[in-house]
């Protein structure tokens, strides 16, 4: 009986889905070369960053990446009624949540990485 329950739980667990919205590749696996890698290569490998800021003074562009996605709500069944309830969680990401920063010069070349 226990084995049957475990088997059912395993099958149900396998049916669960993972989010597809995360960065295209892990930030830790990114190996870019300073003064060589172009902005488009970073975008192609990781996807777009969470925030971009432009410095008009030194013509640099700063890309800030976050890790993972944000849980914004949970939809739970209520008892056996078939109805659901939604719980909203969290607010917008703060500057402290950024996991990596990439700096590009005016020629779109990577000049600095900070993790």
């Amino acid at each position, binding site marked *: 009986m226990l084995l049957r329950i475990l088997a059912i739980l395993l099958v*149900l*667990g396998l*049916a*669960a*889905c*993972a*989010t*597809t*919205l*995360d960065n*295209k590749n892990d930030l830790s696996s990114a190996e870019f070369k300073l003064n060589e890698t172009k902005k*488009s290569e970073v*975008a*192609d490998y990781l*996807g*777009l*960053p*969470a*925030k*971009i*800021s*432009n410095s008009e003074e030194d013509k640099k*562009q700063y890309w800030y990446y*976050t890790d993972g*996605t*944000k*849980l*914004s*709500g*949970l*939809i*739970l*069944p209520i008892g056996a009624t078939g109805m*659901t309830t939604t719980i909203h969680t969290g607010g*917008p*990401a703060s500057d402290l949540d950024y996991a990596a920063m990439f700096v590009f010069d005016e020629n779109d070349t990577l000049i600095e990485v900070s993790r």
Partner: protein
Amino acid sequence: MKLFKFLVLLIVSALFFGCAASPKLSPDVTQSLKGSKLAVAYAQTEKRIHYNELVYKVFWNETRTKDVSYNGLWDIDTDLTSYMAPKVCDLGLKAVSIYDVVPEENIKELHESLMAKPREEELVLSDGLRAKLMDEGIDYLLMLRNDHIGVYTQIGLKQGQAHAMMYVQDVRSNEQKYAGFFPCGGNFKVEKNVREIENNNLAGLKDHMKEWLDVSIQKHMPKQLGLVQ
């Protein structure tokens, strides 16, 4: 039985609210618009994509979000304004892109004023911008304002939605003649992951946005402006 009736009523009411039509421009302004020269503008206040995904977890569902920025990578305002202007002309109106008649600094000032207030608030043009528009013989500003691009995804569904508002502003009196929701969106044609729209310098997103804008200008704008019944 009472609960059943209540649920049916609730669903029917929700459907009616969901189909609420955008308001129409008053007939006298429509007439005036037909004989006037207008400037068109597309203004995106936040250069970001807001992804939202419903994730199935067997015993519960989660909504996961991620925001990405394309600030400085795509000049969406100039690009979509240029795209819009001839499409609005195709409706039988004399329209020009605001970028062709007004200096960049005045447009920047307009965007800053939009960012400073919610879209529900009445549009007010600066005296400088109005003067430039009037010098060019422009009577009305037809503007689409979008706060961000929303992308909604779950199994088998990948949709994009520009949360846009359409405004018609009388340049001479600085009166807002129209403000209404401008539906613009549709399904993304992507192979696997919706974030493919970011590839090749946002090629997928740009193509989809232009396609949806084109459809909405043809389908919704004539009704909202009272050009058709």
